[in-house]
């Protein structure tokens, strides 16, 4: 190895509020802003749907929208996104219909969309297990000579899993075109980062695999976009994988079923609210005259339209066919499954007749 990787940034990389913001691309930033506003609204709507019993569970990304949005925006159409269970917003920002993104969480079928059509892998509930998938897919695309980058998302807690380690190692050995984005939101359910790792930063883990590691302010969408773009670009041009740690914060509870007051105080949450990704960008852009009242209103309106449509469509009771339980276990049904399907069919018919 002649290009021994360096230790990552000592401080999270920032753009907003620094001199680097002079070089912001106004168009891109306005797009980011609109997406952030939409993302925030999406989070609010989804949480509201849990209260109305329309979603079984929702892990919110309030406070983490800059990471979710940036992850979606840096990818080309042919690239793949590998979201964790929390990252429905990234999928939505990539263009997926919010209803499809939330299908799983509403108690409907496990994956609400065709992963191949959208190049979005199924939301991964078993933590970190999606990371080797991203590596394998990126590697396969490279072997086939296709221009495809995979971006895989994982939480700070997920970095403790063996699959994280194995995936990063495979990626580095294979020089696979993959970008690993760790959203360090401070907690794995109730467990704070200090109980999760003794490393100086999670980005330092890159060193042990021989890949570059970057530390970024996860609430700074400009910084996120820049660092992710660089990594995607490096992957695309044959430079191999990158590990990026985004420092952010989970402003709401783990999910609607969680009670965050059991393990953290309000002061911490309030401090992070003062470093809000939407406000950070809004302040920067308005100060620089790149965003006016009309833009803000337009973003809000578009978000409301999305929310209204989502609300309305989620209020419709989904119609599932119980017989579908047997339709996709195998390409061809086994004898045993046919028998079980017959039993259920008979039961359903009997029910109907009674």
């Amino acid at each position: 190895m002649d290009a021994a990787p360096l230790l990552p940034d000592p401080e999270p990389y920032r753009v907003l509020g620094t001199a680097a913001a002079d070089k912001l691309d106004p168009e891109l930033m306005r797009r980011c802003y609109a997406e952030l506003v939409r993302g925030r609204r999406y989070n609010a709507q989804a949480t509201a749907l849990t209260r109305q019993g329309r979603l079984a569970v929702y892990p919110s990304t309030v406070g983490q929208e800059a990471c979710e949005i940036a992850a979606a925006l840096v990818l080309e159409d042919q690239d793949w996104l590998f979201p964790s269970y929390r990252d429905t917003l990234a999928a939505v920002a990539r263009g997926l219909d919010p209803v499809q993104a939330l299908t799983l969480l509403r108690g409907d079928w496990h994956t609400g969309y065709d992963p191949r059509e959208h190049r979005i892998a199924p939301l991964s509930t078993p933590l970190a297990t999606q990371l080797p998938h991203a590596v394998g897919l990126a590697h396969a695309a490279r072997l086939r000579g296709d221009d495809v980058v995979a971006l895989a998302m994982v939480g700070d807690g997920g970095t403790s899993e063996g699959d994280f380690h194995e995936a990063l190692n495979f990626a580095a050995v294979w020089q696979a075109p993959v970008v690993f984005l760790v959203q360090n939101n401070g907690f794995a359910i109730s467990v704070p980062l200090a109980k999760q790792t003794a490393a100086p930063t999670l980005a330092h883990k890159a060193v042990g695999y021989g890949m570059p590691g970057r530390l970024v302010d996860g609430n700074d969408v400009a910084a996120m976009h820049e660092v992710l773009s660089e990594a995607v670009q490096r992957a695309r041009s044959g430079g191999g994988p990158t590990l990026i740690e985004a420092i952010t914060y989970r402003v709401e509870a783990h999910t609607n079923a969680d009670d965050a007051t059991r393990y953290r105080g309000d002061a911490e949450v309030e401090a992070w609210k003062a470093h809000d990704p939407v406000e950070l960008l809004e302040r920067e852009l308005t100060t620089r005259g790149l965003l006016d009242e009309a833009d803000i209103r337009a973003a809000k309106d578009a978000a409301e339209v999305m929310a209204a449509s989502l609300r309305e469509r989620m209020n419709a009771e989904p119609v599932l066919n119980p017989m579908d339980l047997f339709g996709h276990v195998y390409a061809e049904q086994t004898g045993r499954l046919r028998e079980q399907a017959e039993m259920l069919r008979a039961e359903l018919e009997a029910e109907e007749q009674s």
Partner: protein
Amino acid sequence: MSTVAVKPVAKPATMAQALGRAMRDAMAEDPTVHVMGEDVGTLGGVFRITDGLAKEFGDDRCTDTPLAEAGILGAAVGMAMYGLRPVVEMQFDAFAYPAFEQLISHVAKMRNRTRGAMPLPITIRVPYGGGIGGVEHHSDSSEAYYVATPGLHVVTPATVEDAYGLLRASIASDDPVVFLEPKRLYWSKADWNPESPAVVPGIGKALVRRAGTGATLITYGPSLPVCLEAAEAAREEGWDLEVVDLRSLVPFDEETVVQSVRRTGRAVVVHEAGGFGGPGAEIAARVSERCFHHLEAPVLRVTGFDIPYPPPMLEKHHLPSVDRILDTVARLQWEN
């Protein structure tokens, strides 16, 4: 000295409370008992089963670990090698799978490979089964894997009292125990006296929960209430059903089951786990063998389908229901 002892009385308690109490009492009695897992400390676990333990016994006795199940179980192995009695919580059934190698290749085999020199008294608590509307990977009935692994005990309570008694017995066992907690019974209630809880002398005894003469329902864990309800409903059809609660799958209390079926001449095994290669296969095979000359009809099974666990909106079709049990009982060749 002269105070009158107030005899505590039985009050309604949930299975969740009884499980927590079992750990608390075990920890109070034995300083080598350590509870560990994801979110078991400050939060008290996502199901609140370990609520209060970290406060009462400190973080070193009830420890929030890093998020890595193989690491948790592997560390527990080392702790047990040193003489501690770890009680490990796996957050959900499917999240125990990363620890599978540690479980099969070490936990289950250590006593045997050291010819008794190094037993591992580890209790592995696994909330299992469906019926709570959990999204995928949160409702697996994974008992077949554990049952097929020699060296493990596999225990599962179905009542509040057993939750306490069997968990105490499991923690006290010098062998590793996979303790399967039927998560949809966590909030089931019964009158229970936490100050003089029933002691279960050891694991491996099934119980006849309902006596009957016409057929035996053999079940465990989350399916026990369903079977009891089915047995009640069956009276209307003129069937008098016996219900056996296995309580532990390993050891399997074959005698209690065989005696029952020899008496009734008919048997149905009921569980949520998939049928093909599920625990019911062993039970049915063995009952068929040992009750061969007493059986009026083949041993039947009512189980989950042989499919990945369904989405919440369809799970009611998958789970053994009273109706499905009755339909199956009806097929026990009563005309003969």
